[in-house]
């Protein structure tokens, strides 16, 4: 089977090579049947890679440990869902999944554009197949997912317990979909430049893909933050780690592109900016993919030297060099049709929005790659931490939220004072009202954090501005069609999905930032040791360690992640002010897993694997109470049980000693380390994220057909005009 899988990879390479040749030959010689053949080879590529993925998945689900990948990341006792998802937890498997998703989206993009922009699509085909070939080449030459060991080991290592959570199952596919979708606009953008057809047609063709890339990437980032917060033992959702930043960068340029694209459609401006953003997004996506696998940065995700580093650097160098060359050599065609008339106009606000986003990208790139930069410039490797990132990204984020309230409303071309008064009176009033409310001491302590205060006011401004737009739109529609308000609202959104979907996205982002500002500025934390019966005060809550818990064997593991032993505590949370109402009973625990190290003995190996913290949290509208425990499993008494068990018990009876250990822990519980957090408004981060996803889906959704025909006719007229000018 492994041989067959590998043969599929080789076949995929051949198909790619043919497809690249056919598309390029077809478009250069004008013989479009070759270009069509090139397009069909993308479908074939997708088919072949799908077969390869199927072969590997069957190996996982069938516990075929001859496959190295399966042996390294799965085991007989790994729960079924995690077995299926283990394919992307290894280097080789994740490359295969990347190539597979790339092939699917490429096929979709080419299928949807099969009747238009044939020359652009031909170049794009060659580029997309080039990416596919690159990733398949990496697998064939360096990281073969179908490598086998003979004889096959009887049992696999198992999936890292830290990954055995549902959020971790969806996060990689979302992120990979986002990354691979980013390369589609890149391919079509380069294709447009190569074919010298830079009118609005190619943008219209890939607009939905750019939006989908943005959506998947954003969802992937949010899921990663959610996983970090609700499953890891540190209580945070964002650490400015290299890999988090790597995913954020193409998302930021994607956001900039989605905005400046509107300016190009409406006023034919910012064409160079647009095409550069598209190329940058794709390049940053490839750089993000490379960062995790290369070991060039000493973060928690980087692992020593890696042979993949060199091919990736070559690819990224080619992308950057090629992009710069293409944009510079075609800059005459990318001349703006109009000029910026006034700094107080919608075009100007969108341009400012883009500048802020690019500024953010620069800050994050600088901070993330700083270890390399400082080593190159000073010979000494140094790194910057979260406080440095926060210092520069927070003010920029404030400006962004403010702009999201100004941009949709300010007039095109030039805003007049009367215009401004009409549009901004209510939002500014709302912002001032919020400021007054917060300054007057509700809720307490807000004035000590001016940046959070500023963010709340900006968010209020943005939400009020958008709310005003919805109100006015509904009112106009009611006047026109005499519908009741709810129906008018729905009809309003249906007829103008892009606009109102976009507004909803802005509201979601404002809500998200409110949550981020509140939870990062006004958090109460306590890290301390508690014995049963003791309690601690966190924020306005009293947390009491009632009694210890110990559960044995995977069957009773409430987290269903297959731990052998789980030690934890029962915590009672009550309000610290009278009346001391009971808020929640929380049971955080730490799971101890089997390990694969031979040196640990029959008992030690049952619990010697990497422990994983299972946090317990009380979610509330205004705050989360988050608790984590680090039980002490190495007291002299407990260690003695393990050592004696290792010496006297055969492997199959080791679990008896673990049972003794659990009983001993319950009878004489040692003090345990607790991490207690009260974070305000965290829930609204996830709610904001959901609103953003909802708004984005509304914006991408195809419009009802009558509107679509009208819009298509209008944009055809524009593109003809564009061609005439080009």
């Amino acid at each position: 089977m492994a041989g067959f899988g590998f043969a599929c990879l080789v076949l995929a390479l051949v198909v790619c090579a043919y497809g690249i040749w056919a598309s390029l030959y077809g478009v250069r010689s004008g013989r479009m049947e070759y270009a069509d053949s090139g397009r069909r080879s993308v479908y074939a590529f997708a088919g072949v890679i799908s077969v390869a993925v199927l072969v590997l998945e069957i190996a996982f689900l069938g516990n075929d440990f001859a496959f190295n990948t399966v042996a390294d990341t799965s085991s007989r006792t790994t729960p079924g869902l995690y077995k299926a998802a283990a394919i992307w937890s290894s280097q080789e498997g994740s490359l295969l999944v990347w190539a597979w998703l790339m092939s699917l989206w490429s096929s979709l993009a080419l299928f949807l554009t099969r009747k238009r922009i044939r020359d652009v699509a031909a170049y794009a085909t060659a580029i997309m197949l080039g990416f596919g070939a690159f990733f398949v080449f990496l697998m064939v030459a360096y990281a073969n997912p179908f490598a086998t060991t003979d004889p096959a080991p009887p049992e696999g290592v198992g999936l890292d317990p830290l990954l055995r959570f549902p959020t971790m199952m969806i996060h990689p596919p979302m992120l990979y979909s986002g990354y691979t979708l980013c390369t589609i606009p890149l391919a079509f953008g380069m294709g447009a430049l190569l074919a010298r057809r830079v009118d609005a047609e190619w943008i219209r063709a890939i607009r939905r893909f750019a939006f989908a890339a943005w959506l998947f990437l954003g969802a992937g980032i949010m899921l990663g933050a959610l996983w970090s917060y609700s499953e890891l033992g540190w209580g945070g959702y964002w650490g400015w780690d290299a890999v988090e930043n790597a995913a954020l960068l193409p998302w930021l340029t994607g956001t900039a592109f989605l905005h400046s694209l509107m300016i190009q459609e409406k006023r034919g401006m910012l064409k160079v900016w647009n095409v550069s953003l598209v190329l940058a997004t794709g390049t940053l996506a490839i750089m993000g993919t490379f960062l995790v696998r290369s070991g060039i940065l000493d973060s928690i995700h980087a692992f020593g030297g890696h042979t993949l580093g060199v091919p990736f650097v070559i690819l990224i160098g080619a992308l950057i060099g090629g992009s710069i060359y293409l944009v510079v050599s075609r800059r005459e065609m990318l001349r703006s049709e109009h000029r910026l008339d006034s700094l107080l106009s919608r075009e100007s606000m969108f341009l400012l929005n883009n500048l802020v986003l690019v500024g953010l990208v620069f800050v994050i790139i600088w901070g993330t790659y700083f270890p390399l930069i400082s080593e190159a410039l000073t010979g000494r490797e140094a790194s910057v931490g979260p406080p440095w990132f926060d210092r520069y990204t927070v003010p920029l984020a404030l400006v962004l939220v403010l702009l999201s309230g100004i941009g949709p409303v300010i007039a095109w071309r030039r805003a007049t004072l009367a215009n401004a008064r009409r549009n901004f009176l209510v939002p500014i009033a709302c912002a001032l009202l919020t400021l007054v409310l917060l300054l007057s001491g509700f809720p307490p302590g807000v004035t000590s954090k001016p940046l959070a205060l500023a963010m709340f006011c900006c968010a209020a401004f943005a939400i009020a501005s958008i709310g005003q737009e919805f109100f006015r739109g509904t009112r106009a529609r009611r006047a026109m069609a005499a519908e009741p308000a709810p129906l008018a609202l729905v009809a309003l959104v249906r007829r103008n999905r892009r606009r109102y979907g976009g507004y909803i996205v802005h509201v979601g982002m404002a809500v998200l930032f409110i949550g981020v500002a509140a939870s990062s500025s006004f958090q109460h934390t306590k890290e301390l040791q508690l014995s049963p019966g003791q309690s601690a005060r966190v924020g306005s809550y009293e947390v009491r360690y009632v009694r210890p818990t110990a559960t044995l064997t995977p069957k009773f593991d409430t987290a269903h992640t297959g731990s052998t032993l789980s030690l934890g505590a029962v915590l009672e949370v009550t309000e610290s002010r009278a009346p001391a109402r009971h808020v929640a009973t929380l049971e955080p625990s730490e799971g101890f897993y089997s390990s694969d190290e031979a040196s640990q003995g029959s008992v030690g190996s049952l619990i010697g694997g990497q422990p994983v913290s299972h946090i317990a949290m009380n979610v509330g509208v205004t705050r989360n109470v988050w608790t984590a425990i680090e039980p002490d499993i190495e007291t002299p008494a407990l260690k003695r049980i393990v050592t004696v068990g290792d010496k006297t018990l055969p492997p199959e009876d080791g679990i008896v000693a673990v049972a003794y250990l659990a009983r001993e822990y319950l009878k004489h519980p040692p003090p345990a380390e607790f991490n207690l957090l009260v974070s305000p408004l965290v829930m609204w981060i996830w709610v904001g994220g959901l609103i953003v996803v909802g708004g984005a889906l509304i914006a991408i959704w195809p419009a009802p057909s009558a509107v679509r025909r009208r819009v298509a006719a209008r944009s055809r007229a524009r593109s003809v005009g564009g061609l005439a000018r080009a």
Partner: protein
Amino acid sequence: MRRLAGVGAGCAGASGRLRYFAAMNPSRKRTVRLVVALGAAVVLASALIYTSFSAASPALTPSQLLREAQPGRAYQLTGTVVKGSVHREGAVLDFAVADRTGSTAVALSYTGTVPDPFREGREVIVTVQKQGDRYVGEQNSLITKCPSKYKTAPPSENQNS
């Protein structure tokens, strides 16, 4: 032209210079805007770059640390946890970090969150300061790397201080 002057008057009041700006021909105005924007970008970028060098903490191996550490400055120590060196006393965790080659080791005391993957033989990054002739780890600065070649490991487990 009239509207142009109106905007100038409306937003500048009686300021002569702003009225001069408003009455400039458009291409000259665009050049001025471009220069101002680029200038602002250069100033901000320089501020950013300058502060990054002063705010950064250098990453050192144990042998480098022993050679060069000065009291009172924070350094990022990277290396492997020495087998048999891990002792916990209450809230303080004592352990030693050695070079990848295993030649030199630095012993330190650390308080704060200990990430789940931490154990002997694993690679760690911890911010330390030299105090007297001992090394003290900064609270919650301990990061442990995942042991295998490539796994989708979690983001850093240190809290934002």
